């Protein structure tokens, strides 16, 4: 257990400013974390609404509601906004709230830069959403932005390139802030190998962000110059190669996948020990597993491109490296299970989400392993099997870990307990509706249904209807999530400093909600019953 020997709390010269300026000009990691979380929730519902439209179109074969061009806009924007608007910002929101609290820091290392990282998001979001209203409509070439399609589009394509540039600036600055905070602002006594695992996952994630966002920036800059300034980077007539874009994009894109899952691992690794009332099993191996996954993420990118064409040696290399990822990921899954072993487990809402994560993410991981096999991938490329796979890792992986994390820390953030009954209903609805929506997609993909089409052959009709019904239920269930969160923010049973008796990280030594400025003087960290290897005898 972490115990904080806190000195008497004294206020900074500035408390919480009143009114709208508190949010616009904030330099407080908690306020900025809250902004990130609300922004991502809004974007989650926006992109979720697009998903509802997609499922409505696919409810039956034949063109129902949208022309193919509009349908392509829906899938593209759903993907882009969920990734850059919902999942990533919400994880940064967690980092903002939790990293300083968990390492005993007074705030982030660069509080003003932190605020800029946030306020760039609405600017980029505005540019991105505005593309629906320009001539030609929103971008429709898929979130991966492949040329030559992406080079041929209209105004929306330029707007999205610049929006992604702004998002990139935000991500890089945010990541630098997180790295520096973790490296430089840990309380005395909190050595690297005593940090909570959530902090470790974010340190490594932030490193990935700083390393790959610039490569994305460079790739989309080349798209922009190919579009307007006559370059031939992706045009064979000028000696360029459209495949080069795919290499650059996936050099970013694959680490990006881990950017979205590693902090989720961190959240789950925090929740499971709490409700199993046991220290995390194999802390050190967890740290090394996360680092190995991050390293491997740089050398697997072309497994997204097996059908694009590459030498057999390249296919083999990327197949084997991809399979290697299963090893550190397996270490993590086994450690979570071993943490549960002989624990005094209770099943509060966060724990339900965490357990569902372990189960469902593993399914997504296995379908990923299936896709890593070159011959199988050539069969399954661009089918619904792939859609099923990445929703198992992104929704039942990242998004459900995020929801679990929200329920876990809401009492700390708001000072109120959430409604446990509503939380559990939300969990079961989500978990069941998710599987109804996405499990049939495996069958659709194996049977050959291509993705990104508004119409399909008749033999796919039944599974699509089941999937759409599940999708509508999944969407509706999230309204219950919104209601439960708002209800908790507005009031509820007092949470007390530490509502979870098994929790042992530093934030629980603070009041709920924590003071506006916590740990103004760094606490002394004493590890009584630790998660660190030194104490785990």
């Amino acid at each position, binding site marked *: 257990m972490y115990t904080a020997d806190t000195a008497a709390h004294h206020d900074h010269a500035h408390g919480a400013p009143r009114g709208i300026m508190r949010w616009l000009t904030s330099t407080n990691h908690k306020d900025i974390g809250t902004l990130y979380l609300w922004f991502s929730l809004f974007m989650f519902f926006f992109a979720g609404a697009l998903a509802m439209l997609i499922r409505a179109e696919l409810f039956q074969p034949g063109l129902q509601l949208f022309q193919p061009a509009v349908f392509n806009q829906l899938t593209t924007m759903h993907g882009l906004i969920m990734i850059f608007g919902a999942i990533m910002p919400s994880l940064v929101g967690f980092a903002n709230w939790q990293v300083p609290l968990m390492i005993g820091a007074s705030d982030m290392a660069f509080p003003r830069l932190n605020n800029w990282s946030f306020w760039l998001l609405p600017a980029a979001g505005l540019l991105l959403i505005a593309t629906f209203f320009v001539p030609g409509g929103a971008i429709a070439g898929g979130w991966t932005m492949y040329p030559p399609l992406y080079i041929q589009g209209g105004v929306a394509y330029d707007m999205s390139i610049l929006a992604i540039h702004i998002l990139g600036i935000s991500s890089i600055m945010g990541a630098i802030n997180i790295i520096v905070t973790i490296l430089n602002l840990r309380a005395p006594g909190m050595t690297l190998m005593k940090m909570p695992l959530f902090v470790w996952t974010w340190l490594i994630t932030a490193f990935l962000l700083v390393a790959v966002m610039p490569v994305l920036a460079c790739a989309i800059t080349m798209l922009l110059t190919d579009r307007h300034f006559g370059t031939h980077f992706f045009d064979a007539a000028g000696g360029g190669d459209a495949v*080069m874009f795919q290499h650059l994009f996936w050099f970013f894109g694959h680490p990006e996948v881990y950017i979205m899952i590693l902090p989720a691992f961190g959240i789950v690794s925090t929740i499971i020990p709490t409700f199993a009332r046991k220290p995390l099993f194999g802390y050190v191996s967890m740290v090394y597993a996360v680092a190995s996954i991050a390293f491997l993420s740089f050398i697997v990118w072309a497994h997204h491109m097996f059908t694009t064409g590459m030498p057999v040696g390249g296919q083999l290399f990327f197949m084997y490296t991809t399979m290697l990822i299963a090893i550190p990921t397996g270490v993590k899954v086994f450690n979570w299970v071993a943490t549960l072993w002989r624990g005094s487990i209770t099943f509060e809402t966060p724990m339900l989400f965490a357990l569902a994560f372990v189960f469902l993410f593993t399914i997504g991981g296995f379908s990923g392993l299936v896709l890593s096999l070159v011959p199988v991938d050539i069969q399954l490329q661009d089918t619904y099997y792939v859609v099923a796979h990445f929703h198992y890792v992104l929704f039942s992986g990242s998004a459900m870990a995020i929801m679990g994390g929200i329920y876990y820390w809401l009492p700390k953030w708001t000072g109120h307990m959430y409604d446990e009954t509503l939380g559990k209903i939300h969990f079961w609805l989500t978990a069941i509706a998710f599987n109804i929506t996405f499990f049939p997609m495996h069958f659709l993909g194996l049977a050959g249904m291509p993705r990104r089409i508004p119409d399909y052959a008749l033999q796919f009709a039944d599974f699509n209807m089941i999937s759409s019904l599940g999708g509508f239920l999944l969407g509706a269930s999230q309204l219950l999530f919104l209601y439960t969160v708002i209800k908790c923010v507005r009031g509820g049973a007092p949470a007390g400093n530490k509502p979870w008796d098994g929790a042992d990280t530093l934030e629980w030594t603070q009041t709920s909600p924590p003071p506006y400025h916590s740990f103004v003087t760094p606490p002394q960290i004493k590890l009584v019953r630790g998660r660190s290897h030194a104490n785990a005898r």
Partner: protein
Amino acid sequence: MQTHAEHDVYYVPPPSIWPLVGSVALLVLASGFVMLLHKIAAGPYVMALGIGILLVMLFGWFSTVIRESLAGKYSDQVDTSFRWGMVWFIFSEVLFFAGFFGALFYARILAVPWLADAQMLWPGFTAAWPTAGPGVKTVLTPVDAWGLPALNTLILLSSGATVTWAHWGLQKGRQFQLKLGLALTIILGALFISLQIHEYGEAAFTIRDGIYGATFYMLTGFHGFHVMLGAAMLTVIFLRALAGHFTPGRHFAFEAVAWYWHFVDVIWLMLFVFVYWL
């Protein structure tokens, strides 16, 4: 183990308007750029407005930081944060250039030879570097590495030496050496940029001339832009040196800009070898 008394309170700045101003600036700038690309008359003006707001933001934000620094609000721990921050920023810049170098190597080593192999598609095209590609009918005459580029290498390397000499002066409390070294560095930087512009004017090919033109101008252009940025930063540091802001013990702003300048220097060496010479 340290006790509380040994720890300064980490400085958390009060609320600030500048981040929001910066976001508005980038939104206006991006919107103006989109308008410009699509030939909407207001485009350049909107862009200019965005750049104006951005400059106001940079001035306001850095003024605040400088004031706080002079007021002694930054403990050693804050100083360490700045150092780490700059290191990771330069790391991200390295990756940015790595992407463009990756494009160069990919095109030269893989894409162009593959195109030459596809005789059915491009009869008569042979893989040679530099090339404008099979579909662009220009004969490429590359810039001779041992002309202006070699001179520019000498200039930029010398500027790296002068900025280090200025740093030695600063560390030993010789303010004149600091100011002279900085002035020389800025002059050499300006000379480099002028020669680059001259080289662009003389070059027998444009950015539209196939993959060679594209990679050449993209790499040298982004590098030149970074040199300009570095020179602007050096100018601010020079003005601050004139105002006597730096002491031998405390001058991270100087060091950050010097690191950045050396980074730009190293990128140039890569450019010289892989873009101009080999």
